[in-house]
């Protein structure tokens, strides 16, 4: 564990030391960045309400995701990401004799980086994405269905070093699926509201401003 922590802290320095900018004035004036920022995180899903994920499933305690921010203009960042979470079916009367469902989402997010202290930042964001629910039924065969999702949330980040930060985040996720079913069951399958929580690290190639 110590080795992993050591690598996480030292590796970004070794990797990105070439991109270090010694001219502090130039750093302040620069408004457009194209060097990426990588988010690696574990996530926790909280589903509430009358929909198939809340009523018929139980999510694994942790899922995971990545996000790459590759455009930054002033303090507004744009990034793309992917996340994954596994669910176990708990109500076979509404879901069918299916063992597991797998949540995949690809998304794009606009984030605003608000540096409240030298090392602390808040990043509110809005995002859009596409969700795929893959279901594994009898004989391990699989099939899937798709939806569109909208994110609104924020991260709370702490800059550990010039290149490494840790963050925790929370967001609301609204998903609209397109399941063909009886009109009484459409909302159950097609309208999902969930809260997602994340905890992870951020590797900033260009270096954290001010450190």
């Amino acid at each position, binding site marked *: 564990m110590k080795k992993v922590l050591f690598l996480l802290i030292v590796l970004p320095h070794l990797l990105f030391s070439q991109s270090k900018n010694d001219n502090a004035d130039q750093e302040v004036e620069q408004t457009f960045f194209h060097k990426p920022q990588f988010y690696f995180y574990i996530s926790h899903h909280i589903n509430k309400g009358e929909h198939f994920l809340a009523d018929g499933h139980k999510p694994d305690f942790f899922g995971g995701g990545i996000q790459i921010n590759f455009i930054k203009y002033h303090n507004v960042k744009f990034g793309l990401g992917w996340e994954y979470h596994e669910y176990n079916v708990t109500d*076979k009367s509404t879901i069918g*004799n299916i063992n597991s469902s797998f949540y995949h989402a690809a998304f794009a997010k606009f984030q605003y980086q608000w540096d409240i202290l030298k090392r602390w930042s808040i990043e509110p964001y809005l995002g859009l994405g596409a969700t795929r629910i893959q279901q594994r039924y009898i*004989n391990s065969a699989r*099939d899937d*269905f798709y939806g569109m999702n909208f994110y609104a949330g924020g991260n709370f980040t702490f800059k550990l070093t010039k290149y490494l930060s840790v963050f925790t985040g929370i967001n609301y996720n609204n998903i609209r699926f397109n*399941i063909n*079913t*009886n*009109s009484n*069951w459409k909302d159950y399958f097609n309208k999902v509201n969930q809260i997602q929580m994340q905890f992870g690290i951020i590797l900033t190639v260009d270096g954290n401003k001010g450190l």
Partner: protein
Amino acid sequence: MKKIFFFALGLLCLNCTTIQYDVSTRLVFEGQVNDRQGNPISNNDIEAWIKNASDIDLIGFTTTNSDGHFELVIPSPKNETDFEITVKGNSIYRGKKYINIYRTDFQDYYFNVGEITLLELEDISELRITLNQTNQENTITDIQVSGVLADQTIWVNPVQEEYPEHYHDSYYKQVAKNQALNLLYEVRNNTSGQTNQFNEIINVGSDDTTPYVINY
């Protein structure tokens, strides 16, 4: 090489017969399970089965709620169109199967099985009709019994018999006790070709068997 070829062919065939599902389409079954007096039967197991020529899947199951009501939602099979709903029996009630439910029976992805009456095992009598041929030129061509029946298989879409049914010696039916059944049968005279219909009432008592005789 031959072995590999046949192994691959076998795998391919296995894949062909496995039932595949379209999880983006969900079909809904609904029904109400009561006893003979109309009281709801709660916590009764309900199963949905899908089958093709060589495979059968239990694709969904539930139990009735305290009102005897159930709703069961399943993913739609991609190719199969033949569904079966099994209302399981237990040590008190005799179960039922609703078979030959076709995809075309669904309206707005919904099929209502309706009211399902389960009879208590102790409330079932076996109707034994003896077919006593008194005229050698006569043949029974049809027998229908209506009333409270204890059939275990309900054909939602009856299959057309390829050959006409023949009635000889006896006819058996599981029915509820303590009722008056309506018996309808047809007798054809093979010489004249004339067919006559007869309608009779059978009173079923509380015995486990109910004998009856048709003289034709």
